[in-house]
């Protein structure tokens, strides 16, 4: 008998999700009589992670965002699981780009993904209509976004056409996505060494577009230094036309601000590429092999189990749990088809509103975050802030200065 502690349990404020989770624990324990689950709320929180690890309080299986694994692996704060999963066929069905997020420089696997999103544009369909735009045909280029933002801003009454983040590392995260969409890169490897790569045409074009929307068109509002919850609030209050986000933002806005799913659409990222993010699970480096084995079994059963998708969707439908958002496309081939079929059958959100996203997103390059992402984002926050708060910002100088800083950060990548 082995007991494993796992986190990722929904809080009591989400009673439906919480009950499903508890039911799943019971079902899993019934199917696996030798494993007992000690479930806890929460996920990997950088504020408490080190203290928990140092004090022996870290769960055996812990939830992480895609930004975390690289640093955790570098600091040897996760257990390698390659040997445990080498004979597990389902792991081979997971799209390699998401497994790569959990792969260390030594080629070993350190975790499993369980959720995924690609950044796109969330937009307010009513404002599109009001501004004379077709909500079924959202913009596919940044020029199109700029034109639409102008029209939406022209509606007046404090309406903002497009908003973006520039605080607490979220500005850097979005600037990265801007550069990707313009066909550029944030960091590139040359002769085995990482170097900043955004002092490029793509970097310049991204800044120029942001600058022009902010200062020439005045379509980005006057208040800056925003972060995700500020922008969600603007979208929830019906005063914002578009912002860059993953489709997983929609349920948050709908629930938090008591809106309807039908009010929002999602478009794919304009341009050539998009940034993909997500979450997954890693394993405590101090856990015993039996616990790691049991932990992998739990993650595969609960989160990466196409055979259970239909059951889960059926159970959730009609219970205020959104089904059918264009998310979590982690699997290849047959497994993906099986999941898509189930989602379509039980969809309770207007899937036609997400068609512009689904159709174009498949054509875009999916890129992940650069190494040492959080440190780099701190620097790039400054770039976003300068462009959005200084009308006469020297765009080229900003890129040169930030590149130098990022080069020093990248020099520490092992």
């Amino acid at each position, binding site marked *: 008998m082995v007991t494993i502690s796992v986190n990722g349990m929904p809080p009591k404020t989400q009673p439906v999700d919480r009950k499903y989770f508890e039911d799943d624990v019971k079902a899993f324990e019934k199917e696996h009589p030798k494993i007992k689950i000690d479930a806890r709320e929460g996920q990997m929180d950088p504020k408490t992670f080190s203290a928990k690890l140092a004090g022996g309080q870290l769960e055996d299986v812990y939830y992480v965002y895609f930004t975390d694994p690289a*640093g955790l692996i570098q600091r*040897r*704060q996760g257990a390698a699981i390659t040997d445990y999963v080498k004979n597990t066929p389902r792991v081979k069905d997971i799209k390699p780009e998401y497994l790569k997020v959990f792969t260390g420089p030594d080629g070993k696997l350190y975790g499993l993904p369980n959720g995924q999103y690609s950044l796109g544009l969330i937009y307010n369909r009513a404002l599109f209509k009001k501004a004379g735009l077709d909500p079924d045909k959202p913009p596919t280029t940044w020029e199109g976004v700029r034109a639409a933002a102008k029209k939406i801003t022209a509606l007046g009454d404090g309406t903002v056409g497009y908003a973006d983040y520039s605080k607490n*590392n979220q500005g850097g995260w979005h600037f990265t996505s801007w550069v990707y969409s313009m066909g550029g890169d944030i960091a590139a490897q040359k002769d085995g060494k990482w170097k900043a790569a955004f002092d490029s045409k793509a970097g310049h074009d991204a800044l120029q577009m942001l600058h022009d929307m902010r200062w020439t068109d005045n379509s980005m509002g*006057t*208040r800056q230094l925003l972060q995700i919850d500020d922008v969600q609030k603007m979208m929830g209050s019906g005063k914002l036309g578009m912002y860059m986000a993953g489709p997983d933002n929609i349920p948050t806005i709908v629930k938090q601000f008591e809106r309807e799913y039908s009010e929002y659409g999602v478009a794919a990222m304009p341009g050539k590429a998009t940034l993909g993010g997500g979450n997954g699970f890693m394993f405590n480096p101090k856990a015993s092999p039996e616990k790691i084995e049991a932990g992998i079994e739990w993650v595969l059963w609960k989160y990466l189990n196409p055979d259970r998708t239909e059951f889960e969707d059926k159970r959730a439908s009609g219970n205020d749990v959104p089904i059918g958002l264009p998310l979590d496309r982690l699997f290849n081939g047959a497994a993906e088809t099986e999941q898509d079929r189930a989602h379509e059958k039980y969809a309770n959100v207007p899937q036609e509103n997400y068609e512009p996203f689904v159709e174009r997103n498949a054509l875009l390059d999916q890129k992940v975050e650069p190494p040492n992402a959080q440190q780099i984002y*701190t620097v790039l*926050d400054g770039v976003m*802030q300068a462009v959005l*708060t200084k009308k006469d910002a020297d765009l080229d100088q900003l890129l040169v200065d930030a590149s130098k800083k990022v080069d020093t950060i990248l020099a520490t990548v092992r």
Partner: protein
Amino acid sequence: MNNPSRRRRRLSEHLVAYSFLGAGVLCFALFSWYPIVRGWLLGFQEVTFSQPATWVGWDNYRRLFADPLFVTAWKNTGYFTLLALVFGFAAPFLTAVVLNEFRHARSYLRMTVYLPVMLPPIVTMLLWRWFYDPGPGLFNNVLETFHLPAQQWLESENISMISLVLVSTWANMGTTTLIYLAALGSIPGEVYEAAELDGASIRQRLWHVTIPQMRFILMITLLLQIIGTMQVFIEPYVLTGGGPDDATVTVLLLLYRYAFVYNDFGMASAMSTVLFIVLGLFAAVYLRLTRGKG
């Protein structure tokens, strides 16, 4: 007269005293001194918490001093402290002097001045965020009423730090005002009466009676304020995130980033040791001053 039973009694009396003292020392050692010493040691280590820490010598300090933000953070913190002294030192003193003159509604006014201190800091920050909002915010609306140009309170590199100091002053001046009021109350009334009889004006009374009488307390609050404002964190963390363009990155905000965003506890500890040394200097001056008065 030193008979054995008396000595025993005295020893047992001391034993009780020592055991109380011992418990106190133990608590201090465990919760205060040990973390401080551990912090110093961490500054010389690479810490992962999954494996034993490795000694890296002065590596963390070298990396720290090489970080361009390190200098920026100290400059910004110095600027904040200076501004905080200009606003935060004068404002409570003047408020206390004015309040002291009121004969009626004195307790009501004191409570009103103290009210902001009772607000949870996060509520204060959110309230001021609305004041500063360049769109529907209070301040710009007031400026607009007087046909004055709207300001980018938090978004302009030039005034964002001043904006943060204003919040900090508003939120914290209640406590200092009460200290000043207490000190003012302890100045003997006869001194003022004598000055009045000599025909001293209000300004002269302030200059020749109040300030000299309060010199010591003013010096102490000045030092405490320097120590307090150098640890500014929540204002830039909530209101600007260190922006725009690093204009409000403070020492503690940078330390927080090292520890909890980059999970680099070695660097964070090195930074906190540097901060400890700087604050220690001010604390030494404070101790010296108070010892004289003790």
